[in-house]
């Protein structure tokens, strides 16, 4: 399946290579560089590139290309999904997945990659198992290791791989037993010029952080499970129980994991928590344009909208912008033509606005399209779909765990056309 992996940074240097079968020369990456040149932007590099003898499948994350070399037919998503899993694992291990971090921990990276694939076929991809095999580096451990000369390779052989719950490590012990669940919903929407919704959907996830001793068996039930139109589960969730009773029943992995992601369909009306009033105009003859946007709360269920951030890709003809915000800070990058305005909290009494003028390139005609406005925001303590967790029960262990549920709504791909 996967022959080799090359990690390439933004400036086109191969800074790590790993081979699971015979060595493939790194010159194979020249085909990738060619494609990269053609694509102009990193985002547009095709994920699948055929070369005379190999196929290059790549993912682009954290400004690093992860290029897998394949020799024969394989489902492309198999490789892509695996590469994403590699990135997630690195992030899990080192906190951030960056070139510097990978170079600093090259040995751990190598050991992890060695365990993840055998002969190109995924072997251990569950972070619980990997962490048992190779302990993630922490500052404390690094210090201890340098002094005592001990290692970050687990001296205990992992048993998780052999058990019937391969995602959970064995012998977990905590003094404080806690289970936290974050219900995070993202609104994807396109709002048209006049402010009406063209399409809106809610994507939700339940991320969990479970630190419980032993082998707890949890059940989580919702007040209104019918809301969930389409769901995908962590392998630990018992599908049959969900089918018959709409209850999540599972033995959780230890630590952080994504329990569930769901989709609330476009058929249900989606509450749009913010609105944007905009007045952007270019005039044909003059080299000045007017720019004015105001952001305000709409259906927020009485909660405050925070972390508001407005970004917009201005047309090429715009040379500069002179703007004054009523609150927050704004930046216009004259090279990339990207305007971003960090608004912060919305105060319904005093709506934030950004007003001013744009300098246009003299002589060029006015752009045909007004820029679209991308919005980011956060609302704490609210799941916009109305989803509510009913209760969380634990079986199989005797102690009483501390339980916590948090709700949050965020903007996903929230776009306003102007």
């Amino acid at each position, binding site marked *: *399946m996967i022959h080799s992996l090359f990690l390439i940074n933004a400036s086109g*240097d*191969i800074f*790590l290579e790993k*081979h699971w079968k*015979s*060595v493939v020369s*790194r010159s194979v990456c020249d085909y990738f560089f060619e494609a990269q040149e053609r694509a102009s*932007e990193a*985002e547009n590099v095709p*994920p*699948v590139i*055929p070369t005379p003898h190999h*196929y290059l499948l*790549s993912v*682009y994350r954290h400004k690093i290309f992860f290029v897998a070399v394949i020799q024969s*037919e*394989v*489902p*492309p*998503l198999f490789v*892509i*999904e*695996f590469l994403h899993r590699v990135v997630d694992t690195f992030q899990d291990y080192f906190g951030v997945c960056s070139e510097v971090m990978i*170079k600093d921990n090259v*040995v751990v990276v*190598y050991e992890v990659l*060695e365990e993840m694939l*055998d*002969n190109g*076929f*995924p*072997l251990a991809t569950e972070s619980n198992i990997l962490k048992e095999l190779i302990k993630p580096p922490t500052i404390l451990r690094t210090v201890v290791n340098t002094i005592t*000369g001990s*290692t970050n390779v687990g*001296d205990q052989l*992992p048993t998780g791989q052999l058990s019937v*719950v391969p995602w959970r490590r064995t012998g977990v012990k905590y003094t404080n037993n806690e289970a936290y669940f974050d219900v995070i919903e993202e609104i994807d929407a*396109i709002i048209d010029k006049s402010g009406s919704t063209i*399409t809106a959907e809610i*994507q939700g996830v339940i991320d969990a952080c479970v630190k419980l001793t032993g082998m707890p068996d949890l059940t989580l039930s919702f007040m209104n499970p019918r809301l969930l139109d*389409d*769901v*995908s589960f*962590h*392998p630990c969730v018992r599908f*049959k*129980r969900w*089918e018959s009773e709409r*209850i999540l029943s599972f033995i959780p992995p230890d630590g952080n994991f994504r329990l569930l992601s769901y*989709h609330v369909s476009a058929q249900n009306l989606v509450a749009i928590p913010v609105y944007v009033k905009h007045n952007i105009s270019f005039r044909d003859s003059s080299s000045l344009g007017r720019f004015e946007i105001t952001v305000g709360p709409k259906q927020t269920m009485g909660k405050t909208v925070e972390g508001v951030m407005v970004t917009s*890709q201005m047309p*090429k003809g715009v040379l500069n912008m002179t703007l004054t915000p009523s609150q927050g800070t704004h930046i216009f990058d004259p090279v990339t033509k990207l305007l971003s305005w960090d608004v912060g909290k919305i105060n319904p009494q005093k709506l934030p606005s950004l007003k001013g003028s744009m300098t246009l390139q003299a002589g060029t005609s006015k*752009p*045909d399209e007004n820029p*679209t406005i*991308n919005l980011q925001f956060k609302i704490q303590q609210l799941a916009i779909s109305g989803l509510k967790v009913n209760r969380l029960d634990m079986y199989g262990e005797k102690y009483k765990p501390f339980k916590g549920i948090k709700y949050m709504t965020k903007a*996903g*791909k929230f*776009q306003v056309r102007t």
Partner: protein
Amino acid sequence: MSSEASIYNRPSVLDCFRSSGNSWFQKRNLKQMLESSKDSAKLDAMKRIVGMIAKGKNASELFPAVVKNVASKNIEIKKLVYVYLMRYAEEQQDLALLSISTFQRALKDPNQLIRASALRVLSSIRVPIIVPIMMLAIKEASSDLSPYVRKNAAHAIQKLYSLDPEQKEMLIEVIEKLLKDRSTLVAGSVVMAFEEVCPDRIDLIHKNYRKLCNLLVDVEEWGQVVIIHMLTRYARTQFVSPWKDDEVVEEYSENNFYESDEEQKEKDRKVKNIYTMDPDHRLLLRNTKPLLQSRNAAVVMAVAQLYWHLAPKSEASIVSKSLVRLLHSNREVQYIVLQNIATMSIQRKGMFEPYLKSFYVRSTDPTMIKTLKLEILTNLANEANISTLLREFQTYVKSQDKQFAAATIQAIGRCATNITEVTDTCLNGLVCLLSNRDEIVVAESVVVIKKLLQTQPAHHGEIIKHMAKLLDNITVPVARASILWLIGEYCERVPKIAPDVLRKTAKSFTTEDDLVKLQILNLGAKLYLTNSKQTKLLTQYVLNLGKYDQSYDIRDRTRFIRQLIVPNEKSGALSKYAKKIFLAQKPAPLLESPFKDRDHFQLGTLSHTLNSRATGYLELSNWPEVAPDPSVRNVDVAESTKEWTGILGMTKKEKPTEKFYSESEEEEDESTNTSSSSRCLESNLHLHCLENCIFRTKTHELLHRMSGKGLAAHYHFSRQPGIFGDHMVSVQVTVTNTTDQKIENIHIKEKKLPPGMRVHEFNPIECLEPAESITVSMGIDFCDSTQMASFQLCTKDDHFNVNIQPPVGELLLPVTMSEKDFKKEFAAKTVHSGSLMLVTVELKESSTAQLVINTEKTVIGSVLLRELKPVLSQG
């Protein structure tokens, strides 16, 4: 690579490698460290070496020093040495042999993980000399007690095969053995080995097919992908197409109950001609469906392609929702999924129509995603949604991403040809775009308008005139060429303008692009033929220019045209037909999706993504006309009787507490229900008629301990004559208390029964101690229907909804008959009404048999027929 210096610009252990000048010195240094007696020095050296390997630097000189440490006690050193070995053993084969004995010893270690990792490294070092040792190790490991070691053996098979393909036959034997393995750990890996080594040996799968289907849910996600792809191929060779008839008769059709008897009989007669799905085919579809909920995009895609290639058309649409969900994933996942949706949406629009809005383009999408979404939107366009779509397209045309805007114009063109109602609207819209400021947009519009006009040139003189005017400003060659072609083709509609256009272009001929020059020549030729009075000289001028052009192509064309249209003594018979040749009616171009031809590749494969055969692509065969013998999938009789006797007399089946996949096991039970219940019936009849005491009970779950808050209940049909009344079927219920308190007063309440059905409750259980279980019997009159009886199981302070559904075999009672009659017939009566039922099996020539069921109860009859048929055909 020139990055060496920049890589280590941060202080790190590898600092000393910065300059290559003293690398020899460093390697000597490393050698010393490796030979030192301290583990910490060795470890440090190994870490540096691994750093070198990761950078792609050559560290092979250190091989002798490294290989000595293979037996190190320190586990990290050992692991790093393994990493080094796997990388360099191929290059240093002789030295690598030094390490072999260490692995051979480890293969016998009592710890399964050590055995597994030894096998892993041993098989990874790619030294041909050790092939026999590897073969032996694999054979031994394949019968290891630990499934983890067996999994590694499956991986090793592929490695050995790529090292030495001559071992194929021996390896196939190992694969055959491992395919029989019942462990979920092994299944994925061995199927992977199968796909790599002997994908054509489909016969190895037969006996394991049902097991693989049933294990699938519990296999790890990567294995699932491989198994699903393999089973898709398998199913296409073994089952008949479910697509022949749109009407598919399901095993259990609820409607049957409400249909009049005549209709039913008619249907029964039809059943013989109408397609019925092989139960194994159904099993595969049923067991893969829950995997659509996987978090792994590859698994979801694999199931989607399985449904696309195997499911009846009406069922395939259940995958759409999950595929649309994947669109919220990363860019790369979106790209692949959109490609597959594009192919699907061409053939079956209906699948994705409800999700139209999910494909709306956002300005932040990368261009490749935008164009794919646009492609799908175009495929989904129909009379109903076209107006919304066109409004959406209007926004896209104005996009700052001009490449995308151009693609949108193409899309509008396709919508216009496909949906005749909007052709004029689209055309008008495109004409408006001709005054757009952006040249790319105008050029694209011209090209599309050209194609549209060709499909219906009748009354578009005005547009052609308008486009002729554009020629003065537009510079994009394709667009200019298109306009010239249009004017030439329809020169008779614009008789005044055409010669003038030729005049203008003749002037600029030398500065034009080759593409445009060819069209100028064409225009000249056509005008010469239709309007030679005005254009004779102009054309000759153009032809002269063409004659001395730099391009071969243009000189060639000029010569050809001159010979053809200018009559002279040398020109042959062809020039007579010049007009016919140049002004022939040309077929309008078909505006087609680029994804049209992709459907011959299996969806979800690399070949589909690339639209060309990738190495190692395995063709999906066409459905066979006649299904191959389905009995090949039956597991050996000897084995199954063993299983039978195993269950014999077991009335209570305790769930093992360690089994976390209890759900899936239930599913397994259910899936075998259909066939097993009819087999039960068979044995039941045996029991009463021949007094043969093979007796098999099947326990079903009534209430799971998790949902029952610790109270678990199972039931089975005891097959005793009803003790509660003649019409009752007796059911034995085993209630178990899994909590640590006692449960009091267990009884039945709130029966919700279909009309006519009656339940005789068991006597309330007063008290059930912890970990104790008790079996009670109750009677249910099912009224000869397979509808389920629902009621509540109550305790002192709680109640749970449960239901019992009888397999049809449980609704029948035996009738005594003579031994002679029995040889070819079964006879029975239904429990409730005592209607007689006669099952006749008539043996005919060439080992075919006719199965006839005579009864008044047509519903039961047809259900029984459907169940008996596969069972008998297996026997």
